[in-house]
């Protein structure tokens, strides 16, 4: 097989979204100790309880060790070489409207193809854009406020809704959970807070674009979404990052809480800089995402399309505590070049008649290394629990790796649990069939791969699905040959 020269050009071309915007960052010097934690809290003008909360996490972090069990290799991270706070410079009051936002920032968004104004008009999406660590623009807040939905940065939430923050922050992912979640609790910069009151169906898809910008700045996002009884919210997360030489650590925490009959849909398209052909300079994406189905009949659904980052370490999970609650995980992960991904999910069945579905599609090309690591635990109380897991791997080229490591723990006899996994490549027959109908090899591969991922793409909101398909095609171009 040979690949078209045009495709080679695309593959060898520099990362399209790789540019750095020159703005003054109000950055803390590298290093981490209690004073840095205090300084972060102070700069954000946080109340006392948050400072204490951060310090407690920091002290615990000191007692923890970096996890080594994941099937990923990377040079040891020097946590003292990282700068833990970077905020775009702005007047004390902060921008009141888009006009007040640093024009360089807006330009960056435009380069990324996210014209905030247009997007909100065309797609009906409210965008809470995060530039490095502090929210700079939030749109559609008014119409959301009319519905009673709170959609703001977590820093704002700390000031304006301290009771809600106190009640829910860290209640799903406690600071003791794992090394990176603990670090995040100590130094998190900003993130998104969503609160959907009882019985409210959020009138639009909520979306945040993340963007890592200042050099050597770890990005420690914190997202908290609370859906009260009978409410519904769909949240979209998508990201790109500028090109740089040094590896960047990204240790985010996402917490979802669904009360009785509530539903949260969380979709991610992740396309951070994966590093160059030798794997230099990509993002380290060590994320803790967990949803808590607290109420009966609640539902949390994770959908992710992971094509970027040098290393991905991510297990969006569901705690199915309420009776009849539902957890879902749909994932497409692509590793190529020297990318490494250790990703999967955890479904913890605690309530009666809880159900979970896992569909994981891994595509490994080039020298990509990919591991699906998942846990399905059916506890002694979880009568009638049901799980179906499907893990498929597609290998492209003979230098890549695909691992499947499912953990299944069943303690109730009425549980029904099925796990299936397959590994395959694009068969010559499939290719021949498409080519005999006049498709180029690239198109054929793209079509087959998109078919392979269809179950997951179907779960994405429409705009995202289109973007994801495009992303996947671009990611894999030149990988076949």
């Amino acid at each position: 097989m040979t690949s078209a020269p045009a495709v080679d050009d695309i593959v060898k071309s520099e990362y399209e979204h790789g540019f750095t915007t020159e703005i003054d960052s109000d950055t803390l010097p590298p290093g981490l100790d209690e004073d840095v934690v205090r300084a972060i809290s102070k700069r954000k003008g946080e109340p006392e309880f948050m400072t204490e909360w951060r310090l407690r996490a920091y002290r615990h972090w000191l007692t923890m060790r970096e996890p080594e069990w994941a099937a990923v290799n990377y040079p040891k991270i020097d946590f003292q070489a990282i700068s833990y706070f970077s905020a775009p410079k702005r007047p004390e009051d902060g921008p009141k409207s888009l006009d007040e936002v640093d024009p360089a920032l807006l330009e960056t968004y435009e380069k990324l193809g996210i014209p905030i104004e247009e997007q909100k008009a065309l797609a009906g999406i409210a965008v809470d854009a995060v530039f490095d660590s502090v929210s700079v623009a939030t749109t559609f807040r008014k119409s959301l406020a009319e519905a009673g939905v709170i959609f703001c940065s977590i820093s704002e939430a700390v000031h304006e809704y301290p009771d809600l923050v106190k009640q829910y922050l860290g209640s799903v992912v406690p600071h003791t959970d794992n090394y990176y979640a603990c670090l995040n609790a100590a130094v998190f910069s900003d993130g998104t807070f969503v609160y959907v009151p009882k019985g409210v169906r959020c009138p639009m898809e909520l979306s945040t674009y993340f963007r890592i910008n200042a050099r050597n700045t770890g990005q420690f996002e914190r997202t908290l979404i609370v859906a009260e009884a009978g409410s519904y919210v769909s949240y979209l997360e998508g990201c790109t990052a500028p090109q740089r030489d040094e590896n960047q650590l990204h240790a985010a925490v996402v917490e979802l809480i669904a009360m009785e009959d509530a539903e949260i849909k969380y979709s991610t398209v992740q396309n951070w800089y994966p590093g160059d052909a030798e794997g230099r300079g990509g993002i380290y994406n060590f994320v803790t995402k967990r949803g808590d189905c607290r109420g009966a009949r609640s539902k949390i659904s994770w959908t992710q399309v992971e094509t970027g980052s040098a290393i991905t370490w991510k297990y969006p999970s569901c705690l199915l505590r309420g009776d009849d609650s539902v957890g879902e995980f749909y994932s497409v992960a692509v590793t190529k070049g020297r990318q490494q991904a250790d990703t999967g999910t955890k479904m913890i069945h605690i309530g009666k008649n809880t159900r979970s579905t896992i569909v994981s599609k891994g595509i490994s090309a080039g020298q990509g290394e990919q591991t699906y690591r998942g846990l399905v635990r059916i506890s002694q109380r979880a009568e009638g629990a049901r799980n179906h897991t499907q893990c498929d791997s597609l290998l492209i080229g003979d230098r890549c790796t695909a691992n499947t490591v499912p953990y299944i723990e069943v303690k109730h006899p009425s549980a029904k649990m099925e796990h299936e996994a397959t590994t395959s490549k694009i068969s010559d027959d499939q290719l021949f069939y498409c080519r005999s109908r006049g498709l180029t090899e690239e198109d054929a591969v793209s079509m087959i791969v998109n078919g392979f991922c269809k179950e997951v793409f179907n779960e994405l909101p429409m705009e995202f699905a289109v973007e994801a398909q495009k992303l996947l095609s671009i990611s894999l171009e030149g990988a076949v040959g």
Partner: protein
Amino acid sequence: MSDAAFTAFAGWLSESGEGSRPDWLESQRLLARERLADLGVPDRKTEAWRYTSLKGLMEQGFGRTGETMAALQPDDLEEVLVPGLDAQRILLVNGRYLPELSGQGDLPAGVRIGGLRELLASEPDRLREHLNAVAETDAQPLFAALNTAGLDDGLVLWVGRGVVLERPIELVHLSVGLDEPRVAQPRHLVVLEDGAQATLIERYVSLGDSIYCTNTVLELSLGRDALLRHDRIQMESANAFHISGLYLTQGADSRYLGVNIGLGASWSRTDLNCRFQGEHAECDLQGLYVAGDGQLMDYHLDVQHTQPNCNSREIFKGILHGHGRAVFDGRVFVAREAQKTDAAMSNRNLLLSESAEVDTKPQLEINADDVKCSHGTTVGQIEPEMLFYLRSRGIGASLARRMLCLGFAEEIIQRLSAEALRDHVSERVGRRLESAPMN
């Protein structure tokens, strides 16, 4: 678990120096002893022991199994034999080969069967090439290294080039209770040269229900185009600890058909390791475990596809009742050069009670693109529809359940090599299910 606890557990090792052995073997034993010290005792954070605690085992005050009892009479064997099984029997009692109670028979030329100790004395050079070569000393996990450190006696089966051994060889490992809990460490070596064929039935049984520990290692080397059918049946005493490690290497075009039945012991751990050394070889690993009150059965499979064009099948089924627990950890590894590998692993479990538990972890590690690999796992209970079908035909609920469980188990039992053996295992499984409360 502290290393001190392990030293206490394996204290008897230092007394296991009696008998004369070739120098090369002494140095292997020493190497293994050093390795033991290096390895340390795994705890629950060690991935291979994630679901299985060594605490109960380590807390037993074990002594080394001594000389076999002279008091054992042929009549005593009656209760542990398989009725109607035609096979050449090799008897080991508490880890020691007992020629006088082993069956005698005419063997084709090129076949050697006997005790390891015996053959080490008469033909050491023949053994040197294979002993600790299939399971390399410096890669052995804890219990295999422990076995090597005390390596003393066991079965040797050697089938020469092109020889077809028609009559099955039955290895019976009998544990007889002694005044104190003992550890037996039989070490077996089976070599099939190119084109050889044989059937090996390996059984672990006991007289009485005393506390003891069997830590066995079997090294198995299949030459080019060799074929081995291998039945392993573990029916240790209800209070026993059973640890077993199988190390298999397969030459080109060879076939291995293994069936593992686990019914006995209160705590058991089985490691099955297979490595291909030539192309177009086939490995078939099947298993059935039935665990009830007070029983833990832990199976670890590691199939290494290091050669192109090999096939492997791993099919394990489990029935858990009462407070029974099972662990299944299967790993299929496909090396970069092992193109055209075809591997399929499945683990299916029936959970019959609220207190039963199964932890299963079927893993694939694929480094080649032109392969067909899959795994599947299910955990469930008896389908109400099936039960209804039988009950609508006038069959009582508990009998119907038992029939369905046995039906589930039969798929594996029917793979056993001899009819007498199939009947024997069926009957035992049936008896177990009868006594198990079905709710």
